[in-house]
């Protein structure tokens, strides 16, 4: 991926550039809002990482101006203000996702991948999701693997749907709490782990390989078998 990083804090910028570089992604970096808007409008980036508090031109202003110009590049907004309403502001201004500092690199990368995929993927409404041998019927609200029907509760269904929509990508616990439970806080030590392991127990028959793998220090990933 070719990324644009608009961040005035040198340390955060260095750390992100190094991390993204090691994963094989190139990263342009500018340190203020005006340069950020210019670079973003010149195009050619797969995604933009945009800090909210920037010198010269505030991050939200950059985002608003960018969207007003018709530029649809996916934007991940970063902020030190971990307020829920700030998040809403960020998304309303045209951001695709919002991440509060301090964050882990895995969290940032998982979200970055998710917004780039979402933009690239077909937007036509689908009635069925398929990952390897796993099928999810969105209309009938049922799941099956190799013809075996899997009974799922409402939240389990939503969890599986989210993992399947992000198949092949790392999904963090925070992303899951936000998407499935709509909680802006960490609800408890290992709640999400328990839910995922329960889901795993339902979709994997004893002899079948596990589709959901735990990525240490990051989250989960669902892959085709």
């Amino acid at each position, binding site marked *: 991926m070719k990324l644009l990083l608009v961040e005035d804090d040198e340390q955060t910028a260095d750390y992100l550039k190094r991390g993204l570089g090691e994963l094989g992604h190139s990263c342009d970096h500018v340190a203020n809002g005006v340069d950020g808007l210019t670079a973003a409008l010149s195009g050619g980036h797969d995604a933009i990482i945009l800090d909210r508090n920037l010198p010269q031109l505030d991050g939200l202003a950059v985002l608003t101006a960018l969207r007003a110009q018709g530029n649809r590049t996916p934007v991940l907004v970063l902020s030190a203000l*971990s*307020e*829920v*309403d700030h998040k809403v502001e960020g998304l309303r201004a045209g951001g695709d996702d919002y991440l509060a500092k*301090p964050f*882990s690199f895995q969290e940032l990368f998982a979200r970055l991948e998710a917004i780039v995929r979402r933009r690239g993927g077909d937007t036509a409404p689908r009635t069925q999701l398929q990952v390897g041998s796993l099928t999810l019927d969105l209309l009938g609200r049922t799941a099956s693997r190799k013809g075996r029907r899997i009974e799922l509760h409402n*939240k389990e269904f939503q969890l599986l749907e989210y993992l399947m929509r992000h198949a092949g990508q790392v999904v963090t616990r925070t992303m899951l709490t936000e998407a499935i*439970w709509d*909680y*802006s*806080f*960490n*609800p*408890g*030590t*290992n*709640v999400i782990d*328990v*839910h995922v392991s*329960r889901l795993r127990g339902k979709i994997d028959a004893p002899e079948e390989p596990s589709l959901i793998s735990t990525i*240490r*220090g990051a989250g989960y990933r669902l892959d085709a078998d």
Partner: protein
Amino acid sequence: MPIERSAIAGSAALRGALWITLIALLTTSVALTVQYVQTTRLLQERTRALVDDEAASLLARYQAAGIGGVAGAIRRAESLPRINEFFYLLASPGGEPLVGNLAGWPEEIDRSGYHSFSTQVASTGTGWRERSVEARAVILPGGFRLLVGNLSDEQKALQERYLSALVWSLLATGALGLALGFWYSRRGLAFVDQASSAGERFLRGNLAERLPVSGRGDEYDRLGETINRTFAETERLVGSLRAATEGLAHDLKTPLTRIRARLDLAELQASDEQRLRTAMAESREDIESILRLIADVLGLARAEATAAASFVPVQFDALVAEAAELFEPVAEERGVRLETDLAPVRLSGARALLAQTATNLIDNAIKYTPPGGVVRVELHRTAEAARFVVTDEGPGIPEAQREIALQRFARLDASRSEPGSGLGLSIVAAAARVHRATLRLGDNQPGLRVEVIFPIGRAETLS
């Protein structure tokens, strides 16, 4: 720059005294002047009435007997001793005195009407004396002039008395006003003085400082109580901040020390890749716990700063049901039964905070309940309140420690080894405060019973 305190109080007292004195002086002057004007008018009217009577009888003589009759009457009156001594003068049209006990027609009287003048009067023993006279002049037909007057010394005496009385009264009022005014102002300002000294000692760090309250329930008492409440709240906040800082420092220090030790060790064993990986993985876990702690601290700060203005209607029972559902697998894994009994309740509140209240309490309850135990989550509804109750069958909290348990970073010794930042209950307490709810920790026999009682307004009662 701080101003000398006694100087402020002194000058304010002096200003107060000066104002009081000024008001007293004005009042005294006005009162005395009114009195003087009334009295002189009364005296003048009385003298004029006497003079009028006398003049009227002389005019009657003129009507009956002409100028000769008047002259006769005057001569007769002069010769009779009377209580009221009158002055008479009948003069020719040119002003030449004809009859009367005045030496000459006074120059200042040039037309008929009432006049005041002074003249030399012979009195027994002391010779000639200047006396005041109130007189009425009448021009008779033919140009003859008639003047009838009476002594009006009282008015002059009164004027002198008035002036001296005024001077003395004003002097006395001024002196008394200044003294009493200063004393009175000082009395009121003594409280201000006391309050500002107490405030300064408070600022210098004596947070236990309080103002004395007399118990009279007056304005000073009300102000004193407000200041005392402010002091007490500040003391509480400073205390809780200090405890929080110490708690946070302690909780950060432990994993950070572990990370450093591990890094030191890894450096020594740098050739062993397996050991390096283990050190990294373990350090990452510690860092995760630090980040969780920081997220909780931020969450608590956010909870405390939540404004009632951001409240929205929340279907609280649905929120609690969702939280219970979230923890259902956790309870099951631990061998704990999670029971719910939820009455429909609609609240005006902050959704995220209410959800966090539910998850924190349920999370704690499951964590402390031994396998085989029961966690109950209940929501009851009365006319004025909604009661959210979570009970566990864990060790509970002894009554003496319940207050401490609500403070930040309080992890009671028995539970020090449990995971978690120790901020869970603090966030619940903050959420309760923001929603004007009452948080109660009680005994579940065995276990802990946590109750959050939300007051319900009229608006919610209708829905």
